[in-house]
């Protein structure tokens, strides 16, 4: 188990002698995926209740968005407060393609196409917008970039509010849920005699999707492009001297991040309500994703997922299973206030005492645990490697 999580969480490529590397990587990944996939099903079975599924589904969508932010800010070091702008772009693309056609005059447009069209389209359009905005934004650094991306959020709100035929204007609009042919998540029909609820269908759909996104990001970061991103984050001039094209690398990260944000946005609008007004894509939401990224731990795939669970899942759980009665007689302190206070307070505590985030904590625990089970670990690998190769191509 610790083996798996180590493999899966290490953002550095699992460094092994080339011969055994492929096999090791395959087996460990296979196990990681299996464990995740199975854990998923066990969860469905153990806590299949709609309440839990709702929490998990929201968390998974949020995790995709957090991963998108992680690509840009965590791995490439480009601070962004503007993720909701790209989420909005994706959401409205999806709505325009997949949404219902207008019933009353003045209703926003929709072509009720299948998810196989609107979900990818959401990502692609967001990515295109990213490619458009990127060159301007990426001339800036640090706080300047942060404030300019913050500006993006407000420009987005303004555009969304005024582009009525697509966004429905201030009134908001209905967003499409996943549907294949005549089957739709919104009103599911029995499949193989088993009737799953809407939440369960989303769960079945979101789990592999999140797994794919996470795997993709993980792969990018352990291959050439990702190494370039991280080099740019650590030292731009140094990276350039080593041969990294700064503009290319930054744009790559920006576009990939926008793509993922677009997909996340489309799902965020579709689930669980299927309705959103322009104000959905505001700064508060953007900041929640930043919180998720930092609390979970930057530059780590698992960190983003855990962070999303912490920032988006936990408050829902608190609210769902709150011991504090929710009624008018519960005076000053309701679970709403509680989670707001927790949110603010825990952010401060994390930034102060666990800057590496949840994942940093877990990693330290793993190191400790590994030492505990076999003290020679880590050195053993080095040793076997020294033996591994004899002659080098330099001699010839």
């Amino acid at each position, binding site marked *: 188990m610790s083996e798996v999580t180590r493999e899966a969480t290490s953002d550095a490529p699992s460094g092994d002698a080339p011969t055994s590397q492929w096999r090791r990587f395959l087996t460990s990944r296979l196990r990681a995926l299996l464990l995740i996939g199975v854990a998923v099903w066990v969860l469905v079975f153990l806590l299949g209740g709609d309440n839990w599924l709702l929490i998990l589904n929201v968390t998974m969508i949020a995790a995709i968005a957090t991963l998108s932010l992680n690509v840009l800010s965590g791995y490439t070091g480009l601070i962004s407060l503007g993720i909701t702008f790209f989420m909005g772009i994706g959401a409205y693309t999806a709505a325009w393609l997949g949404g219902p056609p207008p019933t009353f005059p003045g209703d926003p447009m929709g072509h009720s196409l299948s998810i196989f069209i609107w979900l990818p389209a959401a990502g692609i359009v967001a990515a295109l917008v990213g490619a458009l905005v990127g060159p301007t934004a990426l001339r800036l650094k640090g706080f300047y970039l942060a404030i300019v991306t913050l500006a993006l959020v407000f420009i987005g709100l303004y555009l969304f509010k005024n582009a009525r035929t697509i966004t429905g204007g201030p009134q908001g609009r209905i967003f499409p849920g996943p549907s294949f042919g005549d089957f739709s998540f919104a009103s599911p029909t029995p499949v193989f005699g088993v009737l799953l609820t809407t939440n369960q269908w989303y769960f079945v759909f979101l789990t592999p999707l999140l797994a794919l996104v996470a795997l993709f990001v993980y792969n990018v970061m352990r291959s050439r492009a990702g190494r370039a991103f991280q080099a740019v984050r650590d030292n731009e001039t140094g990276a350039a001297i080593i*041969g990294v094209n700064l503009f290319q690398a930054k744009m790559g990260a920006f576009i990939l991040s926008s793509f993922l944000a677009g997909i996340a946005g489309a799902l965020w609008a579709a689930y669980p309500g299927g309705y959103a007004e322009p104000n959905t894509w505001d700064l508060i939401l953007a900041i929640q994703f930043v919180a998720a990224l930092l609390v979970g731990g930057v530059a780590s795939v698992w960190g983003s997922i855990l962070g999303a669970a912490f920032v988006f899942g936990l408050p829902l759980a608190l609210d769902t299973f709150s011991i504090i009665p929710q009624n008018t007689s519960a005076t000053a302190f309701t679970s709403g206030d509680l989670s707001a206070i927790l949110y603010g307070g825990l952010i401060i505590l994390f930034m102060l005492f666990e800057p590496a985030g949840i994942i940093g904590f877990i990693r330290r625990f793993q190191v400790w645990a590994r030492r505990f089970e076999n003290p020679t670990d880590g050195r053993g690998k080095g040793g076997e490697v020294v033996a591994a190769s004899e002659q080098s191509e330099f001699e010839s």
Partner: protein
Amino acid sequence: MNDQAVSPQLSVSGVTVRFAGVTALDDVSFAVQRGELFAIIGPNGAGKTSLLNVLSRVYQPAAGGVTFAGRDLLKLRTHQVASAGIARTFQNQGQFPLTTVLDYLLLGRHTHMRSGVVLGGLYLGPTRAEERANRAYCQRLLDLMGLARVRDTPLGSLPFGLQKRADLARALAMQPRLLLLDEPVAGMGLEESRDMAAILLDIKEQLGITQILIEHDMAMVMGIADRILVLDFGRVIAQGLPSEIQANPAVITAYLGQEPQPAPNPSGATTS
């Protein structure tokens, strides 16, 4: 073939660099032959690192020209210098504290690899093969440099000497034709610097890579350099074989820190 032997691989002519009035480099000219180990020395603030920054296109010279293997280096952008065949080590480390040694070398392979974001994300056949091939390449380099043990250690948590060595390994991983070494033994113990010197000679003899070496450690330089250029206050005060440099009065005064008198350019010492 033999006209290459005559025409230098790198030639710097009249390079001048100024920051807000301060002249860091003043009309610096020299030429380096293919396969040569060329040392640049001089007291602190003599402009040694500024010179390297010109060669790796970090600083834009106010005047002068640089040609490398026949092409005008000043036409390139910073990141293109690497693909042109010039690698550089850093004087002070700590730029990439989180990167493991192996990753650092793989980063050095950047210009020799192709896969981009999409291919990398899919991590299918070609990308995987590329990664494996380059991993193997770096692995051998690590073994050669005796870094295999620390392969998975983040640079930040390595002792300074090993960081320098890893940095050199990274530069070699770039398979350069010209290697710029920014004080490779600075802050090293006697033992370590001796090892480093040996490695530099190996690079020269076994790989035949041209090297430009910036160093304080006179003894080391004198021991390994083919030719030496001495900078003081941004100006070239001497240039020639180690023996000539040791004998040069201007150099001695410069190092004894007296008023540098305008030293006659030792034309006898300059090649070509």
